[in-house]
């Protein structure tokens, strides 16, 4: 639990709000990537003694979240040649407001849960909840398939923060397995996006409404 810990979490919270407020697609993806980097550093700083295991998790996390997936998404954008705007279903201001409300709610909720001494007063839980909520907001309010992927990525980030809290509890294998699954999921999604763009000539997920009652 180093002094670097909470500031990084604050950065992540800020990035959440930035993602909600940003109107450019690249910026959103970049923000998510930056969150990935922060998580990598957090992974290391979260622990008193730095073991190989910790290093490995951090490296894999950064590699997946900050390098591979953003590249995939950029590539998808290029292939698909989509409009570079985020095109939210609700305005940016409302989504910002929702994000802020979500953050407050997270802080309140985290108060209702008993904490171990190590985490007393730390931002881990609030920021985790807030990030998850941000991910959900992005998932539910952004038109494009790619933005939804980003939203999902942010959701996973939030979960990962929670995972940090119990890295000691979480054996290495699971961590990596988690990351791997995340990676594969996003990868498959990217492929699908390409198909989608080919079939529908746009990745506007809001247009995928042929199947309904």
């Amino acid at each position, binding site marked *: 639990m180093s002094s670097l810990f909470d500031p990084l979490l604050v950065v992540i919270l800020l990035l959440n709000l930035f993602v909600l407020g940003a109107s450019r697609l690249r910026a959103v993806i970049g923000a998510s990537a930056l969150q990935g980097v922060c998580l990598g550093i957090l992974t290391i700083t979260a622990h008193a003694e730095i073991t190989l295991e910790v290093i490995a998790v951090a490296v894999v996390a950064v590699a997946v979240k900050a390098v591979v997936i953003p590249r995939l998404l950029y590539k998808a954008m290029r292939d698909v040649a989509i409009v570079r705007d985020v095109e939210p*279903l609700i305005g940016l201001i409302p989504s910002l407001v929702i994000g802020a409300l979500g953050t407050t709610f997270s802080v309140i909720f985290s108060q*209702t849960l008993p904490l171990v001494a190590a985490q007393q007063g730390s931002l881990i839980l609030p920021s985790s909840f807030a990030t998850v909520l941000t991910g*959900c907001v992005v*998932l*539910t309010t952004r038109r494009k398939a790619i933005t939804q992927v980003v939203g999902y990525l942010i959701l996973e980030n939030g979960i990962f923060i929670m995972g940090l809290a119990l890295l000691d509890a979480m054996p290495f294998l699971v961590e990596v397995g988690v990351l791997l699954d995340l990676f594969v999921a996003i990868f498959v999604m990217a492929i699908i996006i390409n198909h989608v763009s080919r079939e529908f000539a746009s990745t506007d*997920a*809001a247009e995928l409404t*042929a199947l*309904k*009652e």
Partner: protein
Amino acid sequence: MIGCLIAVAVLLASAALALLAGRHGRAPTVIAAVGTAIAAGVALPGAIDALTGAAPVELVVTWAPPIDQLRFGLDPLSAFFVIPLAVLGVICGIYGAFYLDDQRARRWLAAPACFYNVLVAAMLLVLLARDAIGLLVGWEVMTFASYFLVVFDHAQLEVRQAGWVYLVASHLGLACMLCSFLLLGGHGLGFGDMRSHPPGGATAVVAGVLGLVGFGVKAGIVPVHVWLPEAHAAAPSHVSALMSGIMIKLGLYGILRTITFVGPALPWGPVLLGLGVTGALVGIALALYQRDLKRALAYSSVENIGIILIGLGVGLWGAENDHPAVAALGMCGGLFHIWSHVIMKGLMFLGAGSLLHGAGTRDLEQLGGLARRMPRTSALLVLGGVAIAALPPLAGFAGEWLIYLGLAHGGTEAAPGSGLLLLFAVAAMATVGVMAVLCFVRLIGIGLLGQPRSGAAARAHESGGGLLGPIAVLAAAVIAMPFVWPLLLGALEPVIEQVTLARPDTAIVRQTLAPIAILGGVLWVGVGIAMVAIRRLVRRRRAAETWGCGYLAPTARMQYSGASFAEGIHRLLPRLLRARITARPSADLFPSPGQLSADRQDPFTRAAYEPLLDRGARRFGQLRWVQQGLLHVYILYIVLAVVVVVAIVSLRDYWVLP
């Protein structure tokens, strides 16, 4: 008991065989018929023993969980229904083998043959079951088998709809039965447990009502009878005969069973009496103006169920208010009428089938003039008509007679309040009786007599012995029964004792029946002599056209039609029960073609059930907006589910936990 179980096995085996026999000519139908015959032969002795004083047996088979135990048994109450089932089963089975024969080229007859035997087996199972599970299983199998038989001609839309209505009604009924049994079966679902631990108070009442509704659907009690006319009209005639003859009676069996479980928690007498009067009046009123021969017969079944319920009701009333004579008369009357209705309705439906077979239509306005072209069928149908109009000297009268006297005794002896009701019940039965006369005169007079009303009727041909034989057997029974009733009284005592928990004194019943037997004899002899005399009187005769009252060229189309015959009484019916008639008379000076159409759909379906179901479906349809294919919204649902439920639970913890 064992015999009955063997019979079930035989029936199922023959059903399977019939299915295997597949397309080999007549093999399936013949196998099925033989199966029913053997089964009847095996089942009857045991049943007769059970009615004539053999101690009720119960067989417990340990079975796989979660059922654990299968209980079978044969007590008088079951045996009373097993006997007509076996008899009618084999008669209709043989009839069916010939009835479907002309379809052999076009249709795959293995299925109906198989389902027929499965149906009989299932009904037998229902009667043998001694726990709720067995009864429910048999019941549902019975429903499905009969459903598949009903939709035999599913190429026609109305047949499909009829089958569908039947299926839905039965399923809802089954749900009610299930609830009833589960309420009663707090100490286990065996009949023994239910009888020994009758629930108290409200539970018992609810269970009783649910049982009444559930079984009442199958029995065709108004107002849950709506499936009955549709299904009976749609089904092949031998199936209609079996369904109307015995299947709907199993509904009564169920009600009687329920009574033995629930006991006096419910005032069964008045309840059944009220339902019976309503059912009888509504049933016959609707039967009056039907255009479809088999629909009319089906509604007459509703009426007869009503009369049976009146009998059972007054019997139970007598038992509850210790009028032993009334109890004995009412119960005996009701039970007798069950048996005689089995025979009469079998006769009528099989006869209608023979008519359909010969003339190719059930439409009353297309029949006529068949008494000359199908003399034997017509004679049998006239006999059946007289019988089912409950006129002496045939089978239908005795049962109603006992019920009448039960009511009359009760009405003259009881306290003012109930006495008045019973007396008015007598009047109601009298009205029903005379309306029944009208109804069946109409069916016979318009359907069989006069000039042929269509080419089909003019070309009609008499059916062969295969069809007429079974009908003749039933006709013989219809003639013989009034004279054998007194001998059968002993068989009813254990049944009544089982339901009313008191041995009835059948002495009064016997002495009430005696004059009827004599009356029957007198009438037969008198009519016989009169017919001979008349034939002698008209020896010097010449033939001529029917006098057209001066009109020289009367045609068949000028005859009084079925609709016009019923028109007068139709006017007198309450509006709810009338057909919906839309008329466009020719208005202008030089008459233009006019139009008149009557919608004879069941008034309860039209007024209550259809609107209800439609509204429900529309309500549900309005929910579709929640699923419009928007992925974002779908994810929102998940998120909301998490947030809301977490909020609820954590708030709960906040209050509950220290």
